[in-house]
């Protein structure tokens, strides 16, 4: 095993199980459809709420996608093989998250314009939503990967740790929806986007290390 073969395999396995990717996408679509149905289908309600709804749906589907990302590797013994491969687990985690991110976020961005229409999001705000998703979701993925690593072995402390990790999603969502709302009100939103990018960068730098530690601890 080397980094390239690992990356290719991850890629292939996600392509094979297109479902996985589609899963997050469908979940996203589903949350977005549920809102008009469950709450209020009028454009007066939907248009101002659209950015928030889209971001909530994004966060939930990222969570869904990331939650079990190491489960199969744990069950079939792949994690043990990672550890004996002599490769850096931190980097393997990074690659895995990267693949996941691409596979989930790209399709999501493709269907977004259509769904945004269905929520009556003004066209001008669409670009801000897309940019915020591009900048913000890496943070969601990386933070989520720590949680996934923690829960993979079903250790007792895991739930607790999850409780600690989930709140980290909140700032991302607040800044992202803040940017969208600012855009809808014709205000400046570059500040929020910059913060989003900063959070993602920090998460990118720190999470693989944390996740690697958790993975190491979960194999025994």
């Amino acid at each position: 095993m080397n980094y390239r073969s690992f990356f290719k395999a991850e890629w292939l396995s996600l392509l094979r199980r297109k479902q996985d990717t589609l899963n997050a996408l469908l979940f996203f679509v589903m949350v977005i459809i549920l809102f008009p149905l469950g709450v209020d289908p009028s454009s007066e309600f939907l248009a101002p709420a659209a950015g928030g709804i889209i971001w909530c749906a994004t966060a939930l589907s990222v969570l869904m996608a990331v939650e079990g990302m190491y489960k199969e590797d744990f069950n079939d013994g792949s994690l043990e093989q990672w550890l004996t491969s002599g490769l850096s687990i931190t980097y393997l985690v990074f690659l895995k998250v990267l693949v996941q991110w691409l596979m989930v976020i790209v399709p999501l961005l493709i269907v977004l314009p259509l769904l945004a229409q269905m929520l009556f999001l003004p066209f001008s705000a669409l670009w801000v939503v897309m940019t915020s998703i591009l900048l913000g979701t890496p943070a969601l993925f990386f933070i989520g990967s720590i949680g996934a690593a923690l829960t993979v072995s079903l250790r007792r402390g895991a739930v607790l740790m999850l409780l600690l990790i989930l709140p980290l999603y909140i700032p991302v969502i607040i800044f992202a929806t803040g940017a969208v709302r600012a855009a809808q009100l014709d205000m400046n939103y570059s500040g929020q986007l910059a913060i989003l990018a900063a959070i993602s960068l920090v998460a990118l730098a720190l999470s693989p290390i944390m996740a690697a530690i958790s993975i190491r601890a979960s194999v025994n």
Partner: protein
Amino acid sequence: MRVFLLQKSVNLQVTNLWIERGERDLCRDLSFSVRSGELVRIAGENGTGKSSLIKAILGWVRLEEGELEFNGEDVTLHRDVLLQNQLYLGHTPGIKSVFTALENLKLYCPEASEVALEQALAHVQLQAFADTPAAQLSAGQKRRIALARLWLTDKALWFLDEPFTALDVKGVEALELCMGAHLKNGGAIVITTHQPLLHLSPKTVELTL
């Protein structure tokens, strides 16, 4: 990142190992060595700690006490040199069920050529199943995918935890041949198995409850 040279010579010294699991001592003051050309069999009944011993050497189960030395270097704290030079196959050998036999093998042996990969699969009688997803293979065939790696690797020290599980008689035969060749080449093997070895005579490390 440091790059380690692959060394075909093996000298693993295990000294005074004390492993504990779930409040029970699995071994205490256990010492043994593994050298080039040696086959070391870890023997013992179910639950005596054979798998745990291997995992402890690889660094996933904590050592209460003890030292490990690999080719003269102390690896008790940092196993990198050891990990770079070994190949481990455990009870669950990391076979992905969505991948075909060939793809599974390729993942772990990316440097091997197509020809070499197919040959390895032929050694384990899987040439006809190269493009079948692992999910659709029998229990023994799944194990064989993992074992095919042994024909391709250039790692010097092998850790094989119950490699004969689910293998038929011919498969056991082929595997023993492969192991014999590896030992002749200056490699070393640490194995656990409840089945007797037919052609190879191991040095035994006995664990008891």
